[in-house]
């Protein structure tokens, strides 16, 4: 057996899997939307505005409602109290602009 045979078969296999992951992503939007239905129902029932990903503090829990007005700035880039602060972008100018 030639040395390139196992290599090429391995490549064919990996490339096949790769294409499968790409194809899987294009055929799934419908399924994905259906899967998310219970979440959307809950979100609209309770009027949720943020995911429960960062429960460390108020301003990380409800990132979209973090206010820019307080004396001690309650927004992620203010001062690094929590590790998630380094993952979150500071609000863009205009993102919370109203009423200021």
């Amino acid at each position, binding site marked *: 057996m030639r040395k390139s045979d196992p290599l090429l078969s391995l490549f064919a296999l990996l490339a096949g899997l790769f294409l499968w992951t790409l194809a899987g992503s294009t055929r799934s939007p419908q399924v994905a939307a259906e899967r998310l239905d219970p979440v959307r129902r*809950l979100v609209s029932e309770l009027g949720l505005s943020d995911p429960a990903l960062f429960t460390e503090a108020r301003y990380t829990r409800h*990132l979209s409602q973090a206010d820019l007005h307080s004396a001690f700035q309650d927004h992620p880039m203010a001062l690094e109290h929590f590790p998630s602060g380094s993952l979150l972008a500071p*609000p863009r100018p205009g993102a919370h602009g109203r009423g200021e």
Partner: protein
Amino acid sequence: MGWLRRQRYLLDFILASLLRRKGKNLGLLLVYSLIVFMLASVMLFTHALKREMGLVLQASPEIILQRIEAGRHALIPEDYLQKIGRLRGVTARKGRLWGYFYDPAVRANYTLMVAPERRLADSEVIIGSAIARTRGIGPGDYLTFRAHDGEAYSFRVRELLASDTELFSADLVLMSERAFRISQGVTEGWYTDIVLSVSNPLELEKIAEKLTLRLPDTRPILREEILRTYDAIFSWRQGILFVLLLGAILAFVIFAWDKASGLSAEERREIGILKAVGWETGDVLRMKFWEGAILSLMAFLLGYLLAYLHVFHASASLFEPVLKGWAVLYPAFRLTPVIDGLQVATLFFFSVFPYVVATIIPIWQVSVTDPDAVMR
């Protein structure tokens, strides 16, 4: 056909030659794959998460109206619902009651919320799965809160929020309005904030403007702003993860550069032999191209596929400590596989191209020299 056969022979040769330093090359492949794996994991994860957020947050309220007092978010009086007055396009308005609760028993922050539609008895709560996991409780068990006035209130857990909604419901405690007001000390006539439903998104800006005029001590938060916030989340430049990764990538670049470009005397001699026995300069370059291509392609495919498994079938468990940070509650969630072709193409380009170039460039000089060197 002939071309293909020739490339296969070159593959044969370069494989035999790579296998001579099996340990070193496998090590290189491993580190290389690991780097691609980390990068691809971050890319797949953030993209899928953003997509999911985008889809779900479409269902969140069009406008949330907060009252600001002394620069801080404050409770909003019930009569603001009337004060808003008639606004064209607003189809529904209601006051929300919610807040935070720090549970010293497990040092976790909960989000308390009133859910009128669930018709909860005053002594009942519905809790998110992460709380149930962390506290080790289930339906029928009791959850005790120390209220604002120091009293302890016990609530029976009626049910858990569906676990497939955990990304949004992990830390929720739903209760009745009366229970919330008594335990949190929010008197009648006040709400946490007001949500407005608007049927036509084109009217949102206008409505927001009117709201700030009529109620100058409030600030409206539009759904679009929420969506924008979560679109900017994990943006590419942020994150300790990337700082850490940068270090790893730099280390790898140095290693790969050294490995790929440092032509040993042995390799020079071999290229001389190949040229003397009839290989063209082009053959040598093609052979080296395949060396770079095999390694980097293999690393790309392995790293990417592992990242795919990690993100979509292992719940991105390696990121959990980073995302969780100091929090106690963390949602268990499974993302729907969605892949951004452009992102993958970018990753492909930056993981394969530089390495291939780094392998070919140094060979150039050597392979254009005269083949009679082997005679000396």
